[in-house]
């Protein structure tokens, strides 16, 4: 029960670059529960994975698991990483990024985090736009879609997962409050003008390709490094989750 609760919280932590949950990516290793203390081991595809993203994931793991009312202490253990000890030491003491890396960092990670949320937004939007175009939708009709129309779009299976993911990031950015607002907007909420539609899509495609290319590379490398065993799935409660359908789509 407690284990499932922990996995439920871990499923909310995304790799910021890949925009996918750590549980889906197989980054979560052993999870230990000892009374009110939770120890989470996690591992990344390479020894050199960017330390700033690794720190974000470690900090997010700690924050999410700490939200469970019975948890008193969370111990995060990043394994086999060039800055593993520094990251674990920093996060487990509740330090900020600058506090953990006083000599290497000039600021905290909010700007970087936002940069990658924008990329995630563009990539999610592009996938959905592309599937609508593939179904024969015209640009005008697409730009006419309202936020409130999104859940009812005539998509199925994988398409439904794309809508859910797009809607979730619209909400996260505060762009889903008004059901009559245009659904397809820029990351800051400005509308996409019809004349800019194709150019916007072409640029977003490059962003989506980067994310996917990276994701494919990372999944492959993780498998190469740690084998096929997928510990993250143990006790995972996300069966039937739209992420699964999404994953089939990008694999």
């Amino acid at each position: 029960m407690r284990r499932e609760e922990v996995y439920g919280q871990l499923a909310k932590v995304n790799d910021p670059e890949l925009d996918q949950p750590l549980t889906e990516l197989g980054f979560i290793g052993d999870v230990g529960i000892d009374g009110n203390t939770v120890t989470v081991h996690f591992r990344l595809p390479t020894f050199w994975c960017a330390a700033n993203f690794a720190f974000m994931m470690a900090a997010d793991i700690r924050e999410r698991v700490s939200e469970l009312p019975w948890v008193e202490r969370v111990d995060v253990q990043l394994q086999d990483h060039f800055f593993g000890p520094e990251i674990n030491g920093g996060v487990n003491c509740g330090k900020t990024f600058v506090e953990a890396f006083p000599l290497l960092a000039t600021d905290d990670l909010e700007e970087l985090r936002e940069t990658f949320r924008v990329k995630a937004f563009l990539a999610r939007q592009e996938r959905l736009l592309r599937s609508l175009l593939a179904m024969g939708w015209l640009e005008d009709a697409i730009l006419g879609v309202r936020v409130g129309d999104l859940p009812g779009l005539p998509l199925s299976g994988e398409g439904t997962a794309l809508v859910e993911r797009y809607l979730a990031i619209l909400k996260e950015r505060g762009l889903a409050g008004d059901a009559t607002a245009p659904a397809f907007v820029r990351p800051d909420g400005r509308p996409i003008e019809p004349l800019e539609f194709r150019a916007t899509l072409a640029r977003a495609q490059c962003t989506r390709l980067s994310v996917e290319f990276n994701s494919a590379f990372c999944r492959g490398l993780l498998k190469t490094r740690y084998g096929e065993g997928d510990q993250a799935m143990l006790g995972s409660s996300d069966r039937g989750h739209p992420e699964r359908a999404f994953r089939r789509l990008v694999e």
Partner: protein
Amino acid sequence: MFKTDAGEELFIIDGHMHLWDASPANQVNKYGAGFIGCFYDYHRNLSPPEYVWEASLFQKYGPERMVKDVFVDGYVDMGIFQPTYLKDFYKNGFNTTEQNSALKQRHPDRFILNGSWDPRDGEAGLDYLESLVQRYRISGVKLYTAEWKGNSKGWKLTDPWAMRHLEKCQQLGVKNIHVHKGPTIWPLNKDAFEVHDVDEVATSFPELNFIIEHCGLPRLEDFCWIATQERNVYGGLAVVMPFIHSRPRYFAEVLANLMWWVGADKLLFASDYAIWHPRWIVDKFMAFEFPEDIRKEFGVALTLDVKKKILGENAARLYGIDINRQKKELAQDAVASMR
């Protein structure tokens, strides 16, 4: 040389290759072990199974093996040695210009020998660059911005001393600047793979060519944007090419984007040997065509002419190689008799 079924010959220049020594005897610390371990995972992950080596061979394979793999079995006519020093990780360096020059001497017409410099060496770095030009007549350098040096964990092309070195390159006629954006660690709160510094130096040094290794991946969108703005920015296809085997659809999408944004005249084939063996990459690339929907959407096709450019002509142009004359030279050399 790759020969098509119709008998047409393609001259092949591998734009990025190494002869490294990453054996435990040469490793300084856990970072040296971690560096080659990471390369080995790249190798195992993306190579067809019959091309996967034992770890010990991968750590150190030696010059004979390299010559056979690349020039005898791998279709490659000429290769560009891209040194990567990493002296904080490996006692004698990972592969230096001086080490590479030994094999270049044995096969002078097969290798293009590139040098390297580090802006953190300051004045001494400028002298070193000059000595490389005098000793080896290099016309290109490979820069690795993620290299550690003492307390420093990386640098940018726009750092004042990097600008001084680029100025010197321009003066000395070292025209081809290969930039490898590894995960740069300074400043740690910024995106480690960012390529925006390329934009600035490409504008400041219009006589230099900037070849961005692995096309800025995983930041393809930034690279494509910069390369459309700057006429002297090129894409090196190391790391991109091997996806042709495991992820042909992604490979097609990425290459179509590169051809559309950057152009087929500005892309250079590279195997990144010994991470990947050029033979299977060339075989698969020659057999490759874009899926119909991609061809339509981007209006690009992988014709024989495009393949010729990517596999050799573009690099030949950058390095001033007359392919017809070079073919004649190579027909007589030691490698030709091994084929």
